[in-house]
């Protein structure tokens, strides 16, 4: 650091001297003196400094990382630091908190760290249930939304009239908040007056207590989420379908394949990329289902049978103030997410998309 400062000073002196010599005591020297001592602002140093000599820290950084490194740093570094602090710093801090015994209103004690909270979580049947529910919710929701979205995309792609109108309608629920859709579905699932029970009643089924029945409620939630997000899958698949070259359809037709067979054998296999990226995003949405479950009951405790890790974690933290325990549950949830995202990012990296 001291080395850098002394070099900067020498360079400044040289720059000022040069300017004085050429009789130009104008703006250039002024900006150089104003800005150069600030080691954070790499760009400006390059602007004024490279001419003065190729020995600055900027040049060394550029030599090491590539020629635009310092000049582009003001663009990517602040956002990166903000994300680094709020995402990765927070996760690391969360992990440390999960090792303490922090609860109640007195701050965490960082001197006594152990894995007690994780042991407690593994032995807590509520956490086990929530993990199973999270898993069921994510898998069922993702699978159904993918399948349903693919059907929608194929329907829309059959050269229909008012294609844009239908696409807009199918995607509409996605623009709504979980809080809003939870209100709609609470009403849809209403025992006496809900649309679902009235429609089922016409074929002699029900009425069924969708929210009150602990073995049904999770599937009712999955259904509502599929309603909200299959429009998203449709859009992704539609883009995928339109990227498939015409020849593939023609080849299949020449071979005499039926429409169904053509889709199954030729088209769907080519949608692998779309499927993977849509599935990842859907899983993330599913992990965010907290908002939906909270709004269903206007509180931290979701209907019996629909508790997932996300709701359990928030309840432990903000309802009962078991902060360390909540942090441990959050880490479990994070690891679940990581086990999906890690391979995905690696796959994208290998594909050259990163």
């Amino acid at each position, binding site marked *: 650091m001291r080395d850098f400062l002394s070099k900067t000073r020498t360079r400044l002196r040289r720059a000022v001297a040069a300017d004085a010599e050429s009789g130009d005591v104008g703006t250039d020297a002024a900006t150089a003196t104003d800005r150069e001592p600030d080691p954070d602002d790499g760009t400006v140093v390059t602007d004024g400094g490279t001419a003065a000599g190729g020995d600055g820290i900027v040049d060394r950084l550029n030599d090491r990382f590539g020629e635009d490194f310092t000049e582009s740093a003001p663009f990517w570094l*602040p956002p990166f630091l903000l994300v680094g602090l709020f995402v990765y710093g927070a996760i690391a801090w*969360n992990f440390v908190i999960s090792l303490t015994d922090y609860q109640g209103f007195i701050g965490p004690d960082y001197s006594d760290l152990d894995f007690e909270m994780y042991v407690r979580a593994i032995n807590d049947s509520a956490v086990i249930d929530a993990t199973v529910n999270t898993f069921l919710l994510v898998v069922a929701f993702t699978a159904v939304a993918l399948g349903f979205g693919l059907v*929608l995309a194929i329907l829309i*792609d*059959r050269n229909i009239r008012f294609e844009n109108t239908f696409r807009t309608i199918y995607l509409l*629920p996605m623009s709504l908040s979980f809080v809003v859709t939870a209100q*709609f579905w609470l009403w849809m699932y209403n025992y006496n007056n809900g649309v679902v029970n009235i429609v089922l009643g016409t074929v002699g089924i029900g009425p069924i207590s969708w929210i009150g029945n602990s073995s049904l409620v999770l599937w009712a939630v999955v259904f509502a989420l599929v309603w909200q997000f299959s429009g998203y899958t449709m859009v992704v698949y539609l883009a995928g379908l339109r990227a498939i070259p015409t020849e593939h359809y023609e080849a299949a037709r020449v071979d005499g394949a039926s429409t169904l067979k053509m889709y199954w054998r030729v088209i769907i296999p080519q949608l692998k990329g779309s499927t993977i990226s849509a599935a990842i995003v859907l899983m993330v949405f599913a992990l965010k289902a907290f908002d939906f479950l909270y709004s269903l009951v206007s509180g931290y405790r979701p209907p019996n049978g629909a508790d997932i890790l*996300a709701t359990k974690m928030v309840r432990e933290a903000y309802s009962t103030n078991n902060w360390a325990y909540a942090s441990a*549950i959050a880490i479990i949830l994070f690891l679940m997410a990581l086990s999906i995202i890690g391979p995905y990012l690696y796959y994208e990296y290998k594909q050259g998309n*990163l």
Partner: protein
Amino acid sequence: MSDEPLDEPDTTDATDSTGGVADRLRDDLAGLDGYRVALYAAILGMTVFFLTPIESGLVTAFKTNPGGISSTLPFAPPPPRFFTLEKWQTAIAALGRGMVNSALYAVPATIISALLGSFAAYGLTQADWRARYKAPVLALLVAGIFIPYQAVLVPLSQFWGAMPLQELLTPLWVLGVPEAYTGLVELTITHVAYGIPICMVLFRSYYRNVSEEMIEAARLDGATFRRVYRRIVFPISTPMFAVVLIYQFTQIWNDLLFALILVSTESSPAAPVVLILAGLGESMEGQDFALRMAGAFVAALPTLIVYIMFGEEFAEGVAT
């Protein structure tokens, strides 16, 4: 609206369309009237499926409670004797301040996160530095999209609890702004931080396809990296800014979790609209569904307007 052309595949329409599967299959299908009927039946069936919850909510919001709600079908419009606007009035009265609060943080957070996302994407695509070092920066930013927010909640509470934000904003309180509005400043910064990754990815996919020659020519002419952004990249980003702003605005407006953690009670003067809505109807004599539905529509109004006006951009933001 679209049931007239059911059984005659319209040839002009088909040739006009910009490529779809059916283009290539039209010959196969020209004779299959039954097939077209089934196709449109399926499409209309799906339309009913997607619109029913919304339609049912809309008509219910105009019904009296409990009379209108229990004696009419949930998807039927209210007959005159059960018709009322009272629920809308109540909902607007209850949610009005929430709408203002939501706008107060959603708008700045949207703009700032879009700008920072654009900066980051520019610095990570058009800048020439070693991929070996760029890749981890990029990977960490991209992974930020997929983080379950539960994993950062407790530290987030701790962080904002320890920040002397309330003291820093003293001038505001002197001016008579309720101190609870600290929560909105926290929400803005939080949403910016967690919004950057997705904005960066959206912009990045766009900047990667920007013509390199133009930028290279400018660089060779001696334009600095910053100048290229201001003069070339920023102006041509306008369509992508539309996409990102629309997407981010709906995301931030719709989010409940951060609002719940940072503002916490719906009775707070700074409560965002989603927070008030989540508790609406419950607090008033049992479950008043007419009020809930009216509230849901009031809260969804800004995103609905944005969606109806900019559906294309929204779809693009979603698909990337």
